[in-house]
């Protein structure tokens, strides 16, 4: 065999490799040309050992070149075939990934509960505990200990549901404040608690009222607590809930269980306090009532008002949820229409 023969043989092999259409044909060609025993090119190597003279070196080079060319062609063709195969597979498995068809069936959180959690989180970070109390209360804890004796004018805004028959001395709490009293009566200051929960007032349902709604009451009693501390706390809490850009305004008010009493407003989210249609020109939206715990209330809980002072506040998560999520009618909060709930 001459170098030329080898070149021809290699050329023929390359042609056949290029024409191979699948992996088994390639395997066949590998055996045919490069098999250790009987491969057409391998066979040339054995002839090499028989040849003599100057031809031998040239023939050796030609053999190596032919063998490398064929092996490279085999490898290259194999890669090509693999990628063609992968492309066919990929084309067959092509999916529309723009939509899952079966969305995740997750449940949704009720907007009031979501708001309650957020309020709770703010206070837990401030070191308050979240406690709950009974929803059925007696006059003593719901009113009297909170400085609201019978016939007190402040009871006007607490139109109360009383139980019937043998239970007529029991009422549905009109605020979660009675738990303030229960907490103070059961322990020793300092206190830092919030009391989230359901309350009821005898208000006919309308877009801003439900007979049953939620309240978060807060109480902090310690030595040297000031109105300035109340102001700082309320500013932090309101801005944590509504955003740092929203102004907070405190104005004088009256609650029988606090003195001084203060209501807190947040700047309207639309006009930021300037006054617009959404806030009916007021610029401010009422958010919570608060004040320094009345010395009489502290004394009712056997806490010395000379040694301790504190503040209390109450806010309505229903109303806060309505404001934050643009719910125009708070009655919707208790219908549990999934079209609303699934937004959360």
């Amino acid at each position: 065999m001459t170098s030329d023969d080898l070149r021809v043989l290699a050329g023929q092999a390359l042609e056949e490799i290029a024409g191979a259409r699948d992996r088994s044909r390639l395997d066949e060609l590998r055996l045919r040309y490069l098999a250790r025993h009987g491969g057409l090119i391998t066979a040339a190597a054995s002839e090499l050992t028989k040849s003599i003279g100057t031809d031998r070196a040239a023939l050796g080079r030609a053999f190596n070149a032919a063998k490398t060319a064929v092996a490279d062609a085999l490898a290259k063709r194999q890669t090509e075939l693999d990628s063609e195969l992968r492309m066919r597979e990929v084309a067959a498995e092509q999916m529309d990934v723009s939509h899952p068809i079966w969305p995740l069936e997750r449940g949704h959180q009720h907007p009031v509960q979501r708001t309650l959690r957020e309020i709770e989180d703010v206070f837990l970070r401030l070191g308050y505990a979240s406690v709950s109390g009974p929803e059925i209360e007696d006059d003593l804890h719901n009113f009297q200990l909170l400085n609201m004796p019978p016939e007190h004018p402040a009871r006007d805004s607490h139109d109360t549901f009383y139980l019937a028959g043998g239970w007529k001395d029991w009422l549905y709490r009109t605020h979660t404040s009675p738990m303030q009293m229960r907490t103070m009566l059961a322990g020793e200051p300092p206190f830092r608690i919030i009391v989230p929960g359901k309350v009821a007032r005898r208000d006919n349902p309308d877009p801003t009222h439900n007979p049953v709604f939620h309240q978060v009451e807060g109480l902090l009693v310690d030595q040297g607590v000031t109105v300035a501390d109340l102001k700082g706390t309320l500013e932090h809490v309101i801005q944590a809930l509504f955003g740092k850009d929203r102004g907070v305004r405190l104005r004088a008010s009256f609650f029988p269980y606090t003195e001084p009493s203060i209501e807190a407003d947040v700047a309207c989210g639309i006009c930021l306090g300037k006054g617009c249609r959404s806030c009916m020109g007021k610029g401010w939206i009422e958010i919570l009532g608060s004040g320094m715990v009345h010395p009489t209330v502290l004394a009712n809980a056997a806490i010395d008002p000379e040694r301790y002072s504190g503040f209390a506040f109450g806010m309505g998560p229903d109303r806060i949820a309505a404001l934050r999520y643009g719910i125009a009618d708070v009655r919707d909060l208790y219908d549990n229409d999934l079209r609303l709930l699934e937004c959360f």
Partner: protein
Amino acid sequence: MRVSHEWLGSMVDLDGVSPKEVERRLTLTGTEVERTFEFAHGLEPIVMGEVVDLHPLRDSDHLNLALVRDGASEPEEVVCGAPNLFLGALVPWARPGTRLPGGMKIGRRRIRGTESAGMLCALDELGLGADHEGVLTLAPGEAVAGQPLSELFPGDTIYELEILSNRADCLCHLGVARELAAALGRTLTEPDTAAVERVGEPLAASVSVAIEADDLCSFYLAEGFSEIPAGPAPLYVRRRLMAVGQRSLGAVVDLANYVMLEVGQPLHTFDLDRVRGGDGLTRVAVRRARGGERILALDGQDRPLDSGSLVIAVNGRPAAIAGLIGSLESAVHTDTRNLLLEAASFQWTSIRSTSRRAGLRTEASARFERFLSPNLAPPGAARFARLLHDTMGVSPRPSPVTAGALPGKAAPIRTSATAISRLLGVDVSSEAAARALRLLDFKVDGANDEISATPPAARTDVTAPVDVTEEVGRILGYDSLPATLPPLRRPQEQPRVATFARPVADLMMGAGFTECVTLSLMDPTAPAPVAGLGDGRPPLLIGNPLSASLGGLRYSVLPGLLAACRLNQSRGRERIRLFERGTVFWAGAEGQRPEEPDLLAMVDHRVESDSTESGNRLRRLIAICQGLEGALATKHLRFTAAKRPGLHPGRTAEISCGGVVIGVVGELDSGSVRDLELRGRVVVAELRLDGWLQFAGRRPVAPRLARTPALALDLAVAVPSTAALGPALERIADQGPPELESVAVLDEYLGPGLPSGMKGWTFRLTLRDPSRTLTSREGEKLRDQVLQVLHTAAEAVVR
């Protein structure tokens, strides 16, 4: 309550103070302005016309033809239906081409063949009131023909105020003006109450007053006035009344109302000639009503009086319910000549409960019931006398008749600048505190740090040092305070049970259930086909329900959730999964505090369903309950077949924990589904969390992780079809070999290939010995041990 900017301006200088500023100052200091609106605006085009001729219009039974002149041009004919028109009256005349404040344009119209030159206007047409009964008529001398109406009714701004319930003193212009003066730092000019010279027969000669119920009335003052002339109250009085929404009802009543709205003391007026006895004497007694007494009140209602009500009896007959309303027969009229004026102080709780029982709230009772200062009575009477004298020339009769006593001079409240600063959280000097208090009309004394403050007589809400602190704080303004935080403390410990609220809700939402909140009130009479844990419990009833549908307390969360299902079904939903955690109310012994269990309820409703599909959903619901057990790391739950009203007898389990039933899970019986107007199939569960949660939060203990390989072997058995898997697995866990690491249930098989009355269970057992590799022979031996346990527990045989 409404107050007029113009009226306030008569007591405090409002020069350069815009309504916006008034609004802001009042609101920040505690007198919230709910709404501000304009009064008597756009009246410029309307002129006063004088009626110079008046006769009925032909062909009409109620229309008149008035000849009206404006003093400049020829009189013109105006058709008018007002019954109160009289010859010589001065009336607002909207001539053709003018526009009324409401926007209506007046033209020249033909009415019954007569052309009318515009119209004569009623109060409502001018935006001055709600009255449409007649035109606004002024007496000759009050206006001149041709005068623009806007000269008589200059524009005003009205503030609708929300007065705090402890501030009875602010239920009048003087009280609000006092607040405003303090907020603006300006001086207050109180209305003139200087004594008027008295003339005529002494009142005491024929009038006596006795307080028989001194617990309900501390002070009563009666003034007499004679020879009241006919005619209306002066225009400015009527205008101010109109501005704040009051109707004009004749001079005496108008002046009494005016004084109430101005200085806050409700006054009552009796026609002395109508109440005087046959002997010429008038004996006034303030006493409790007697059995069977009634009163025909001014509002036309005949009211029975109960012994809890305080009445003003004159010569033995009730002439008024004290502080609430007078009788029709004793009331003053336009022709009243002799007047008996009452200025009294009634006990506030009594007025409040009488008003509530009578279902009537009047301007007077709204003031008395808020602890009005008794000290307002004498100046109230004096102000009335002053006004009646100055405007109508009437003097009071010598010596008022009084009974009871006014409270003694209030003792000053002692506090200090230090105490005020300590509570407010900012340094307030005694001078600054005194300045703020004096702006509010307090008398302030004291040296150095001491402050001794006496509130104005009208204030009944300031009684303790902390009240004084509030006065200083609100006048200094809370916006001037620094915003600090209370000192850092060790955080208050959270009740342990409360920390598990979130994992419960999160697991439910993760499982695809949406959280609901339903009302705690329910219709106690509506049938509840399924009431979960509340089954068989009578609902606690509300004594004063808003409506029958909210007449009871809920005893289960499920009825509310099922109602939410129905709502969503009606809105086209076909797959509804809801949960709610909430309190329900269970009655115990009568009169005792009801129990308030904390329940978690869940419903899974699907409109397109069949037995297999709903069965799978029931399995899933049970799995969720078990998942809760795991997520909360709490006590083991056991599910036992049970029968419950409204639930499928073959698909219901009671859930128990440590032998106590704490829940129920099952599929609704087809009858319940129908009764609830639902379609398809519904599975439900209700679990009581309190009690169970207290065991939650077990600390996990990590196992030693063996490095030896596990051996997995399947075990297929046949058991009687009534066999229960739950107890069988418990037995395996208890009695199986220690090498048994876990048991997975691969399948429950019901079908061909099994003897009748049998079903198949397939388990995959994972076996492992931590010290060495198990051989397959050893594995098979262990599997036989498991089979043995199953055989004893559930009569299992190998399949």
